[in-house]
């Protein structure tokens, strides 16, 4: 039977599509170490020039919020519509604002 501790660890892969854009999460790879993770990321996610730069990091290192807490976590922003420019009524004729 497979022993999870003997499987190559998982790495999350982020690709920068082109200069000026930030890295985006595209998926994951299994690899024994960081160098191999980069090589596998290259072969798996950039076979068609999808990127100019790669990030890989051990999946176990990601800290994520709990979807069950999404309500209390994001709710405080809900009643603060005044953070959006459309909240303010500016008369017609006033331009460049």
């Amino acid at each position, binding site marked *: 039977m497979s022993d999870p501790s*003997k499987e190559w660890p998982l790495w999350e892969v982020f690709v920068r599509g082109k200069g000026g854009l930030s890295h985006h999460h595209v998926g994951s790879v299994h690899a024994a170490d960081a160098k191999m993770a980069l090589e596998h990321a290259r072969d798996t996610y950039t076979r068609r020039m999808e990127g100019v730069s790669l990030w890989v990091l051990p999946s176990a290192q990601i800290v994520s919020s709990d979807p069950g807490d999404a309500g209390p976590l994001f709710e405080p922003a809900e009643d603060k519509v005044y953070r959006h420019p459309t909240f303010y009524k500016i008369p017609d004729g006033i331009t460049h604002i």
Partner: protein
Amino acid sequence: MYTTDMSGKKNAEAITEDPALIAAFEARVANDEFIEPKDWMPEAYRKTLVRQMSQHAHSEIVGMLPEGNWISRAPNLRRKAILLAKVQDEGGHGLYLYAAAETLGTSRDEMTEALLSGKAKYSTIFNYPTLTWADIGAIGWLVDGAAIMNQVPLQRTSYGPYARAMVRICKEESFHQRQGYEIMMHLAAGTPEQKRMAQDALNRWWWPSLMMFGPPDDKSPNTAQSMRWRIKRDTNDELRQKFVDITVPQAEAIGLTVPDPALKWNEERGAYDFGEVDWEEFAAVVRGEGPVAKERLQARQKAWDEGAWVREAARVHAEKRAAAKLAAE
């Protein structure tokens, strides 16, 4: 993959699921929302997805075998480079899908072992042999064509990681079908012998391609549940009909004949009527009685066994280096 712990214990099925959670889940899915790895989901949904996604991944990996068979015998360098790139894509597709399935808490090694033990299935189509170069054309055109038909709706499947993997796969799959059709086009316009080869390949791959859509709707017990959960978006028969309607004119355009005497345009339906698939043959291939089923699994087992020392050595080497680095700090 999103940091799913795969060593942890799985939810025992004996646990009764909270009806309120189930209702909330069903409502989200009915509302076309995406379900993400850490969201609550019914165990049956998780199990169905692991089964479908791992089966899909295995099909991509086993699918490399019939075509890999022809890489060293491609008729010229252009065809060889293209076939090599296609087979590499299939490997990539398998990896996207394994990674997406792993987010549900089943490791890639577990899935591989399920394949090797015969517990997990893969598409029946890959248990047919590739006898001539024209088969490579027929596979790209028909098998990848049928796969695209199945996969396009899955880009909107309810499980987020699966849907995202399908978006990548669909983007890449179109080249596979076009290169296959191009091979058939050239053969069909070549010498009489070449045209015979193309027709022979179409004759042998047509019916197995129609089987790729699965059993008829009235004999597909999982379809209703999977459609309700938005894991599946169209029925088997709907997709099969669509495939026939699209493919028949493509065959006619290059002077090839679809091997079905019952095939006839139905003006009223605006679709082709076509003959009955041999479901006995389909059932036999599903049972593992396909012409080259044994060879396929043997090839996978051999690769798995012979790669074991490589996986082990790389892991131990990395552990040793990490320990040495830690000691030096």
